[in-house]
């Protein structure tokens, strides 16, 4: 039958990371249907918007890691240690989306929710899971940095490694700080005005903005590296990548400082 054939094909054709991304994307279909049926709101948006955002964000993260995995040293991903680590990371991702989806189904919040002993106990565990799943970008960044045979231009290789490492470092700082506060706003919104799609407040400090920029370092820095290797002569490309990585970290720092000062990013 059609179904059994396609599910037999999935794991063989794709890596475990891509398979998880496909699962997250497909699982957002019932979440979208729930959004259509549900009038409950949190902070002015449908209660299902947050699970949908996390499914999308984690799917993009996984597809990106799966793409960069081709530049890992040969044989690394076949090793028992890496596979065990990957299983833990995927387990953490599953735990996060189940926690966030369950909170929506129960009509409550996931992050910052300490309203009962159970929610208060789960929240720090999910923080640990978040750090664990983000650590895969650090592990891949270091492994790609050290790989002598990526087949990439040195500047592009450097940009991928730096982007991955920055994603971990900057996310742990920005998201780690945010998770230890009582909410993602710095200040109290009066009108509730916010940016479309992203949903960041345009009135008060918004800690999700630096978290977003921090986590997308693994896209931003390699993009500069790719353009630099295309346009610039070889001797210029590597310093440009270093400069871009520094500039990216500075940008995140500025956005973080602005949010902490209670000012909106835009």
């Amino acid at each position: 039958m059609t179904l059994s054939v396609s599910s037999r094909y999935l794991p063989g054709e794709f890596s475990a990371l891509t398979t998880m991304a496909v699962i997250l994307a497909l699982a957002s279909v019932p979440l979208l249907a729930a959004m259509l049926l549900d009038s409950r709101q949190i902070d002015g948006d449908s209660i299902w918007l947050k699970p949908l955002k996390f499914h999308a964000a984690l799917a993009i993260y996984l597809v990106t890691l799966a793409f960069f995995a081709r530049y890992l040293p040969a044989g690394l991903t076949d090793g028992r240690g890496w596979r065990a680590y990957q299983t833990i990371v995927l387990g953490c991702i599953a735990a996060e989306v189940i926690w966030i989806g369950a909170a929506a189904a129960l009509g409550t919040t996931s992050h910052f929710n300490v309203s009962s002993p159970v929610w208060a106990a789960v929240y720090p565990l999910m923080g640990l899971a978040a750090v664990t799943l983000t650590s895969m970008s650090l592990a891949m960044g270091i492994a790609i940095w050290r790989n002598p045979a990526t087949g990439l231009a040195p500047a592009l290789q450097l940009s991928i490694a730096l982007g991955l490492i920055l994603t971990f470092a900057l996310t742990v700082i920005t998201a780690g700080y945010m998770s230890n506060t009582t909410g993602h706003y710095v200040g109290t919104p009066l009108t509730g005005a916010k940016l479309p799609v992203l949903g960041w407040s345009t009135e008060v400090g918004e800690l999700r903005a630096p978290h977003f920029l921090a986590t997308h370092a693994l896209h931003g820095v390699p993009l500069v590296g790719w353009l630099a290797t295309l346009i610039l002569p070889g001797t210029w490309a590597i310093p440009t990548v270093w400069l871009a990585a520094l500039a990216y970290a500075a940008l995140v720092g500025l956005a973080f400082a602005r949010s902490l000062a209670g000012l909106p990013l835009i």
Partner: protein
Amino acid sequence: MTPDDLFQLANPLALLGWIILAASPLSPRWAELIAGVAIPLVMAVGYTALILVHWSDATGGYGSLPDVMALFTSPAIALAGWVHYLAFDLFVGAWITRTARAEGIAHLFVLPCLVLTFLFGPVGFLSFFILRTALAKRSIA
């Protein structure tokens, strides 16, 4: 959308599936794909959404008959239960159609089983097994 709106959508969708199964000798592959996979999947998405949205507010449970009856006092949960019937009955109908085809049972025998499954789920399932056993015995003898 209210539970009533969804009910008005779910019934014609199920009916379409049953008509396709009844006419399945015309195109067994497509009938199987639409009535046996696509329509049950669409209903499964709807059911999942209803449960995600309404289960936490529902009273009752699975533990006793009064608990189950209490569940169905919520229009959204009653609708979810109805969609559950529609989806699984259709899935069983598609299984009957496929099994009969594989075992060479004439479609004329299958039609009454489909009607019974459509109206009274397990009665049609039971009928098909009785029919299957009877026809198998005859071919051995």
